């Protein structure tokens, strides 16, 4: 199946924000890995066998094992390679708990409403509600950034941390959603800290390596939206 030894292999798609999180962590740790592109329209045996529960990317292979769920994988990378690069989580348990809190918040309050909106079958009212929820989540994350960074560049302080990776992986998709939904999520007036953070984050080498091209994501999303709309039209 995945091959053993210490080699790392990542199964993902070029556009997956969750895959980007894992790639960010791997790059920040200076870990080399084999990248395998998955076709989600025609799922591979490898994917179906290694992630039977969710059948989703990313999946990280290491020492003959498959790791699934982006932040579970990031935790694994942090713990399995303690001497690689710098830690994403601080050593203080309280600060670690705060980082985990904000990632949990991001998943339920930002990512969940957003994923619901992306399936292309939402009513106008549902889309409006989803956008409202996302804006509220971003406003809260603005406050979180202020608290966590205390004036420093990242949620992790001077250097990128766990929360930065979790949010940073989503960055291109958040920007793309601004175009697709006609809503500014990272707005210099409303969320100045996050707006500055996102510029700073996007300029990092790790981000350039791990995040997809913005234009390509827009094109892909429009194609998917077109396909979903066609399905909706055909069914009505």
């Amino acid at each position, binding site marked *: 199946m995945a091959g053993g030894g210490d080699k790392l292999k990542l199964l993902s798609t070029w556009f997956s924000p969750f895959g980007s999180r894992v790639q960010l962590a791997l790059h920040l740790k200076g870990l080399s890995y084999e990248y395998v592109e998955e076709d989600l329209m025609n799922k591979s045996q490898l994917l179906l066998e290694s992630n039977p529960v969710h059948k989703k990317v990313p999946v990280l292979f290491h020492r003959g094992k498959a790791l699934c769920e982006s932040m*579970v994988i990031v*935790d694994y990378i942090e713990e399995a390679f303690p001497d690689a690069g710098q830690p994403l989580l601080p050593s203080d348990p309280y600060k670690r708990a705060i980082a*985990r*809190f904000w990632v*949990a918040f991001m998943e339920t309050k930002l990512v969940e409403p957003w994923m619901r909106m992306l399936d292309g079958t939402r009513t106008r009212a549902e889309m409006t509600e989803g956008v409202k929820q996302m804006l509220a989540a971003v406003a809260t994350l603005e406050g979180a950034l202020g608290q966590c960074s205390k004036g420093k560049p990242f949620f992790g302080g001077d250097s990128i941390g766990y929360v930065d990776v979790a949010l940073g992986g989503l960055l291109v998709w958040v920007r793309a959603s601004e175009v697709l939904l006609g809503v500014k999520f990272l707005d210099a007036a409303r969320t100045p800290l996050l707006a500055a953070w996102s510029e700073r984050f996007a300029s990092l080498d790790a981000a350039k390596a791990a995040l997809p091209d913005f234009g390509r994501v827009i094109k892909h999303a429009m194609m998917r939206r077109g396909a979903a709309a066609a399905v909706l039209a055909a069914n009505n």
Partner: protein
Amino acid sequence: LRRQAERGREKKESSMADGEGNLKLLGLHVSPFALRVRMALGFKGVSYEYIEEDLFHKSELLLSSNPVHKKVPVLIHNGRPVCESLAVVQYVDEVWAGAGPDILPADPYQRAIARFWAAYIDDKLFPAWTGFMKAATEEVRGEKLKETHAAVQNLEKAFSESANGKAAFFGGDSIGYLDLALGCFLPWFGALRVMFGVEVIDAANAPLLAAWAERFGETAVAKEVLPEPDKALAYATKLKAYWASLNK
């Protein structure tokens, strides 16, 4: 008077790790998420002040310690609040690393398995069984029950894969992270049995989990804090009345 006693502070005595003066837990006696934390603290033998919250009349302390969600559990340690049950359990595991066995295993891969399934429990199982409980129509109830049983089947498989299904608990010979993550729902599964005549963990379809549930219920940490199903039942009745009043 009884209500006062229930809402009053309960002191948990312990001979081992001392967190007493500096450690408070805001909880609800039937909240599975609060129960996770109580069991984690019990597992480590840590003493703390337990404060029962009335979620219909949230205290200032709750609102100020968890302004983002305004939910229990909140662990307040040396005046600093820690929220989100799984983050709190990991916090307890890390702060009281010396006191008693580890909640999460040492091996990174085993930790990943535990975290994966705990996330699955929160993302898939919890919405399914609570959706079942809250369903307004037979149709939705049927859908949600199917989802619940499907999730249980995946967890049954997970149990069979951990130590080939031969260990007593997900954590091995003694309970661990995943046992706490799932075990906290047992009082509610008992309540659903009474309310709807359904078995969430059905011995016929999920024999390993059914046996696990019995064993879990017999552990010291479970016996110490898990309420009887009738407490969950009483609370469900209270919730139903509340939801009904919202729909007026």
